[in-house]
C-alpha cells in the first residue's frame, strides 16, 4: 500500500517539499509558520499560474518559450492603459491583458497549427519579437509606481478572508484548470494529442487545433500573470521576468510533466512550482549565499528528471511471460 502510494509522482513531490520544509525549519523555525507559508504560496502564485499554462502546451508535445515575453508585453500594456486612463476599471484592464495574452498565444498557435513550424522555433522567434515590441512601444521607458493608480496596485494585495487576492486568483486558476483538464473534451484532447498525435486523428481530434487551443490558454494565463506581476511589483519595463520562461519549464519538469507530451497533471504543475517557490524563498532566509541559488535549482531539475524518468521506465516494462508458476 505504502509502496503503491510512493510510486505516485505527486505524492513523492509532496514528500520532497515536506522534507525541504523540515530542513529549513531546522535552521529557521519561523519559515514554516502558517503565516509565512501563506506568504510563500502568495509569492509563488504567478509561477503556478504560468506553469499551468505551460503544462497544457507541454502535454500536447509542444513548448512555449515565449510565455515570459508575453507576460512582459501584457503587463506593460496593462500598465500603459492604467497610466493613460487612470479611471479605467481594473477588471477591464485585466480582461484586456488576458485578451492580448490570448492573442499572442493565438499567433504562436497559428504558426504551429497552420504552418507546421516546430513549436520551439516558433516560440524562440516570438520570444524575441514580443519583448522587442515592448521596446518599440515604450522606447525602453519604465512605468513606475507613481504612474499607476492605487486601485491598480492594490488589487493583488487586497486581503480577502486572510489571504491576498493574488493567492485566491491562483487557487481559482488551479480549480478551473483542474476542471478543464479532467472534465472537458479539450482537456482530454491535450493528453491524447501529446500521448499519440497520430492516433488522435483517428479519434476525431484535430491535432493542430488542439495545440492552437493550448497556446491560447498559455497565452491567456501569461496575460493575466502580466497584470499580476506588474501590479505586484509596481513597475513595468522591457526586461521584467526575463529568463522566467526557464523557471516555468523547470516547474513543469519538476512536477513530472513529460517533455515528450501526454503525461502530467495539474497537481504536478502546482507542486513543481511550489517546490521552486519554497527554495527561492528559503535561500535568503536561511542565509545561503544568493549566489548558490542557481546551482541549487539546476541540481534540483536534474534530480527531478532522473527520478521521473526512472519512475516512468519501471512502469513501462511489461512482463508478458511470467514463469510457469501458474
Amino acid at each position: 500500500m505504502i509502496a503503491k502510494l510512493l510510486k505516485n509522482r505527486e505524492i513523492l513531490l509532496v514528500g520532497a517539499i515536506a522534507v525541504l520544509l523540515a530542513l529549513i525549519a531546522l535552521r529557521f523555525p519561523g519559515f514554516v509558520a502558517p503565516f509565512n507559508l501563506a506568504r510563500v504560496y502568495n509569492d509563488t502564485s504567478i509561477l503556478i499560474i504560468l506553469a499551468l499554462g505551460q503544462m497544457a502546451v507541454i502535454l500536447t508535445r509542444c513548448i512555449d518559450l515565449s510565455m515570459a515575453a508575453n507576460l512582459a508585453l501584457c503587463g506593460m500594456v496593462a500598465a500603459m492603459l492604467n497610466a493613460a486612463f487612470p479611471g479605467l476599471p481594473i477588471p477591464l484592464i485585466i480582461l484586456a491583458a488576458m485578451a492580448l495574452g490570448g492573442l499572442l498565444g493565438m499567433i504562436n498557435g497559428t504558426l504551429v497549427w497552420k504552418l507546421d513550424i516546430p513549436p520551439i522555433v516558433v516560440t524562440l522567434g516570438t520570444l524575441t519579437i514580443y519583448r522587442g515590441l515592448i521596446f518599440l512601444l515604450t522606447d525602453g521607458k519604465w512605468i513606475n509606481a507613481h504612474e499607476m493608480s492605487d486601485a491598480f496596485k492594490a488589487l493583488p494585495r487586497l486581503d480577502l478572508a486572510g489571504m491576498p487576492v493574488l493567492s485566491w486568483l491562483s487557487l481559482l486558476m488551479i480549480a478551473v484548470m483542474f476542471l478543464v483538464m479532467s472534465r472537458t473534451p479539450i482537456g482530454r484532447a491535450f493528453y491524447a494529442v501529446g500521448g499519440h498525435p497520430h492516433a488522435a486523428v483517428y479519434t476525431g481530434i484535430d491535432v493542430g487545433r488542439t495545440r492552437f487551443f493550448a497556446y491560447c490558454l498559455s497565452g491567456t494565463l501569461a496575460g493575466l500573470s502580466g497584470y499580476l506581476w506588474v501590479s505586484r511589483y509596481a513597475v513595468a519595463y522591457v526586461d521584467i521576468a526575463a529568463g522566467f520562461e526557464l523557471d516555468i519549464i523547470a516547474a513543469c519538469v519538476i512536477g513530472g510533466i513529460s517533455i515528450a507530451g501526454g503525461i502530467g497533471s495539474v497537481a504536478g504543475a502546482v507542486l513543481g512550482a511550489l517546490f521552486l517557490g519554497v527554495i527561492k524563498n528559503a535561500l535568503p532566509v536561511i542565509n545561503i549565499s544568493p549566489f548558490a541559488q542557481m546551482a541549487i535549482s539546476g541540481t534540483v531539475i536534474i534530480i527531478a528528471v532522473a527520478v521521473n524518468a526512472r519512475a516512468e521506465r519501471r512502469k513501462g516494462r511489461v512482463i508478458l511471460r511470467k514463469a510457469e508458476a501458474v
Partner: protein
Amino acid sequence: MKPAITLEGISKSFPGVRALSDVSLALYPGSVTALIGENGAGKSTLVKILTGIYQPDSGMIRVADTETTFPTALAAARAGVTAIHQETVLFDELSVAENIFLGHAPRNRFGLIDWKKLNADAAALLQRAGADFDPTIRLRDLGIAKKHLVAIARALSVDAQVVIMDEPTAALSHKEIHELYALIERLKADGKAILFISHKFDEIFRIADRYTVFRDGTMVGEGLIADASQDDLVRMMVGRAVDSVYPKKDVKIGEAVLTVSGYRHPTEFEDINFELRRGEILGFYGLVGAGRSEFMQSLIGITRPSAGAVRLDGNVLVIRNPAEAIRAGIVYVPEERGRQGAIIGMPIFQNVTLPSLSHTSRSGFLKLANEFALAREYTARLDLRAASLDQDVGTLSGGNQQKVVIAKWLATKPKVIILDEPTKGIDIGSKAAVHAFMSELAAQGLSVIMVSSEIPEIMGMSDRVIVMREGRIAGRFERSELTAEKLVRAAAGIETQINGRAA
C-alpha cells in the same frame, strides 16, 4: 438489397502518388465484403476516406440514399461508420475506458465529462467484445492481446451500421482470431455491413460473402466469394498468376554454424538451446508475444541476456551491440520495419550501406562511388522498384521498403541471417519474391533463421522448426514430421484437439 453505404467515383492523390482513382464500392447490411489488393493498392486509404481521416479529391459518399461528407473522424462515427484501423490508434497513458470513449465521451448536463457513466458504459462494451478486465486501469498495463480487445470495444462504442476492419488479424494469435470470427458472425446477424481487409486468403474464404479487388488504386473486380477461386483473386490483384507453391529448395545441410546454449533473460526468456547449420532454414514459430523477437534481439546485442553462450563456427562470441554482431556475421532483419528497419528521411543508398560503411569507406571517410555500387548491386538482386537510389525510402511502398531493409542486411555479407516476420503485411507477390530469395540464400550456404507466426509459411519454408511459448522452447520438429496441429498445440501449450488450419 439496399447498400448501407455507397462510394462513387472516389479519387485521392498524395504528392507524387495517385492512391485511388475513380473507385466505387457498396457495402450491404448483414454481409461481409473482403477488400483485397497488393501493398499500396489503396485499401487503407479508402478506409481513411470512409472514416473521415482523409478527404477525397473527388467522388461522393452516400449513406442510406443521402449524400454526405465526413470532414472529421467524429462526423463519420456520427453517420454510423466505425473502424478497427491497421495501425494501433490507442493511448498508453489513458485509461481503458477513456481509450474507448475518447472523442465521444458521455457528458453531464453542464457539458462536463461524466466519468461514472463512461466507466460503466466501457465495462459493458468490453464484455461485448469478450473481455472482462477493469476499464479504469491504464492501457499501458495491458498486454498486446488485451489492447486489441480495447480497439475492438472502441469500434463497438459507436452505434454503427458499417464496421470496417483493416487487417485485424495481423497481430492476433490463433485463439483470438477465432474469437474475432465469432464476433463478426454476431455483427453480421445484427445486420451490420462489414468491410474486411486481409492478405490471408484462408480467412477471406472463411468469413467473406463478397469481394472487391483493388490494383494500383483502381477497382479491378468484384463479386461473390462463392463464385471465385483463390487463383482468380490473385490474378486480379497482381495481374498475373503467382505460384502458391513454396519455392523451398532441397539443400545439403552442412555442419553447425551457430550454437546457442543456456540463453536466459530475467523477464523475457530462458533455457534456449539450439544449433543452426549451414544452408539451413530454421523456423521459429509461436504465438504473438512468445518472446521470439526479444530472444533474437539478444543474439545481436540489443537486449542483454543474463546468462548463456553463443558459438559461431566453434568460437565463443561475446556480442554487446549490433555493430559487433555485424562484424561477426550475424544480422537481424527486424520485425517492425518502420521503427527498427528503414531510416525514413534518408536516401535508399544510404539505408543500404549504413551497416557496411566500414567496407565502402576509406579510413573513416565516405566513398560515394563505392556506396552507390554496393546499393545498386543489392537493390537489383532484390528487384527493387524505385525512381532513383537517392530517393527517400519513405516515399517507397511498404513492400519496397522491406526490400531495401533486406538488401541492407545482405550487403554486409553475413553468415547467419535472422528474418523476423519477413513477410508480415506484405502482399502475395512480394511475399513470393522474399521466399524465393530466402531459399536461394540458403542454397548459397547462408544459414537462415525465420521467425514467423504464419503456419503455411513456417511449414513451406523451414528445414526444422522450433516452437516457442512464454519465453521457452516448447517443441522441436524436423521438416518430415511437421503438421499444423503439432505446431499449434506446442505453441498454445494445450493437449486437447483443436482445429489446426492446413496449408
